[in-house]
């Protein structure tokens, strides 16, 4: 095969690659196709964001007019001890509500990946908490946590453990709320990791067995690296979910006792819908959004890195 090279046309621009030509084609005939998506995105994403930014620069209470204050709301937020405290609570809650379901969910996935009698039935039962409505389960847990009349303290008494105050004490409220979160969302992690395990090739295990590797070595050096991208997906989903957690916390404690479980979401809700400080609440939203974006990017980077290394 011989290649034919045409001489370049004098004065002509070099032709862009085919893909680039398509991406910069703004021919009016294509606008019609893009318009619906552009309108929807502008209406439901871009406009609310611009308006939130606008509100965050104003001192604005529902029922009153906006007064431009520049960055004053942001400056006030960083002097507000309740806001700073709520950031700490959010971080504490998020770390526990991500790490524990990931550990338990991965362990459960490894168990349910094996063959044993009634595996299908038990797996279905295990997944059931995930299907429940958060508000409904929060109400049920609230009753179970009652220090005098709740079933949890009764169960503890059967094994000789004294009554606990659960969500009714500042020191135990966040770990207890995390317990509800773990119960609710561990099945999701299990399903994601189980999906990863189902797709693993059998050859590396066969080779490892021939080489005399133990179960732990096979898990540590084969299963975990191969399933790691799936775990990272679960971590990203869980982190976003834990940061967003509002319904169960609000129903069970309303941020109490005192402000012991007041996360950013509860703080935001109070400012916006109890005190009607829309400007101040918008500044919280902007900061919160920045945190969520930053964390998500970090996790996505970590996930991508784990793929490159795999």
């Amino acid at each position: 095969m011989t290649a034919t090279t045409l001489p370049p046309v004098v004065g002509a621009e070099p032709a862009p690659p085919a893909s680039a030509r398509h991406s910069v084609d703004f021919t009016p005939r294509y606008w019609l196709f893009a318009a619906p998506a552009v309108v929807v995105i502008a209406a439901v994403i871009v406009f609310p964001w611009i308006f939130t930014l606008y509100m965050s620069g104003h001192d604005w209470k529902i029922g009153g007019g906006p007064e431009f204050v520049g960055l004053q709301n942001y400056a006030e937020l960083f002097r507000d001890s309740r806001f700073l405290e709520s950031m700490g609570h959010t971080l504490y809650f998020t770390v526990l509500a991500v790490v524990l379901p990931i550990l338990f969910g991965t362990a459960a996935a490894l168990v349910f990946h094996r063959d044993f009698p009634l595996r299908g039935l038990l797996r279905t039962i295990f997944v059931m908490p995930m299907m429940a409505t958060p508000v409904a389960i929060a109400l049920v847990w609230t009753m179970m946590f009652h220090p005098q009349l709740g079933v949890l303290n009764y169960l503890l008494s059967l094994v000789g453990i004294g009554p606990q105050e659960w969500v009714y004490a500042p020191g135990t409220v966040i770990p207890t709320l995390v317990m509800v979160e773990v119960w609710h969302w561990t099945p999701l992690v299990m399903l994601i990791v189980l999906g990863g395990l189902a797709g693993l090739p059998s050859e590396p295990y066969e080779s490892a067995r021939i080489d005399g590797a133990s179960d732990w070595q096979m898990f540590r050096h084969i299963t975990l690296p191969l399933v790691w991208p799936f775990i990272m997906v679960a971590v990203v989903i869980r982190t976003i979910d834990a940061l967003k957690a509002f319904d169960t916390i609000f129903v069970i404690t309303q941020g109490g006792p005192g402000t012991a479980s007041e996360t950013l979401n509860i703080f935001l809700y109070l400012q916006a819908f109890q005190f009607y400080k829309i400007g101040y609440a918008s500044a919280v939203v902007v900061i919160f959004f920045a945190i969520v974006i930053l964390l998500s990017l970090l996790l996505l980077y970590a996930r991508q890195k784990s793929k490159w290394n795999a």
Partner: protein
Amino acid sequence: MTIDLDRPSRRSLMRGAAAAGAAAIVSPLVLREARAQAPFNWKRFAGTSIDVLLVKNPRSDLMQAAEKEFTELTGIKVSAEQVPEQQQRQKAVIEFASGKPSFDVSGISLHVQKRMAAKGKWFEDLTPYIKDASLTAPEFDFADFGAGPVAYARQADGSLDTIPFFVDYWMIYYNKELFEAKGVAFPKTMDEIATVAARLHDPAKGIAGFVSRGLKNANVPVWASLLLGQGIETTSPDGKLLTDTPEAIWAGELYKKLNKETGPAGQVGFNWNECQTTFMQGRAAMWLDGIGFATPLEDPSKSRIVGKVGYGVTPPGPKAHHAGMFADGIGISRGSQKKQAAWLYVQFMTSKAQQIAMLKAGAGAPGRASAYLDTQTISQSKFGKQYFDCLLGSAKVARAALPQIIPVTEFRDVFGVALTNAIGGADVAAELKKATETFAPVLAKSEQG
């Protein structure tokens, strides 16, 4: 007597003039009398439809149950919506702020939204409606509403923008069986509540001497009710905060002592429902809260202490004797296009019959005085005489417990945290001072714009 029109005499003319003058004077009286005797025209707005926003509670259930009767009487169709309390308050604020609320009638909590409603000009002044005999049925009898509730509903400028149809008095529920077992009498003073609670407190048996709200925000009415015993509210009549005064600290110390030393474990996170459950299961000797929470206590399917519940008026404090008062009102949106039809709804739903139905159902204390005189209802009620004595006794010493300011919710939040910290062991005076310093600028700002 006849008058010769062709040749009138001076005497006949004078007689005629006198008769005409008398007729001119008397005719409005005659007309008014005739109108008074004619049945009130409930049908004048037949065919109209009105929208109503209510808080989800048993009183709203009664209103909705009476809608059919109202529509049959007036021909006015009603579309009423019940929304849980917190969300209803938010909805009301946002819709009234829009200037065009989607409802013609709304209920509000006077103890939270009264000043906000006045500032935002949410409601019509009902006084002209009440005075207009063509719009108000003679049997409505506004004078029947208690002076206390009416004063509570009346705004500073004298306007009456809601009818105070429900009043909640704070009192002490007590477990008679536990009191009798230890031979203890109901406390005669606020200080005695603590001594009586200490005698009845028995953690080994799972019995708390006293239970009340410890959860932030919900706990403020408890402290504010105790403060009334010092003869003051949380703000002075001219709007100054009295929340770090020696009296406020005294009330805070009593609140702390009662909850920390004689309360159940975990009460720092208790709202009214946890208190109610604890008391209803026989796990607390006394419970300070609103009388509106009494109904389940006498329900055998929910309560273990049916027939053993005592109802006591909040005892006097060192300087005064008051029962904390909270109330709900119902009014007509200023932005409504159907105000007169809406007024017929309001007067029907706050009529004597409806108020008696509320008392009969155990759905709360009515704002009308006549409801408490209905001996048939009282004799048939599952609540004993002591309950009604407590209601009437509380009504006599009732006083608003929460401050009549615009940012009530923020007030409850800030001071609620202080009280929760106090139960946790923090110094009451320091907590109240800190809370007062935090809240003072919020209050000042709210009064500016």
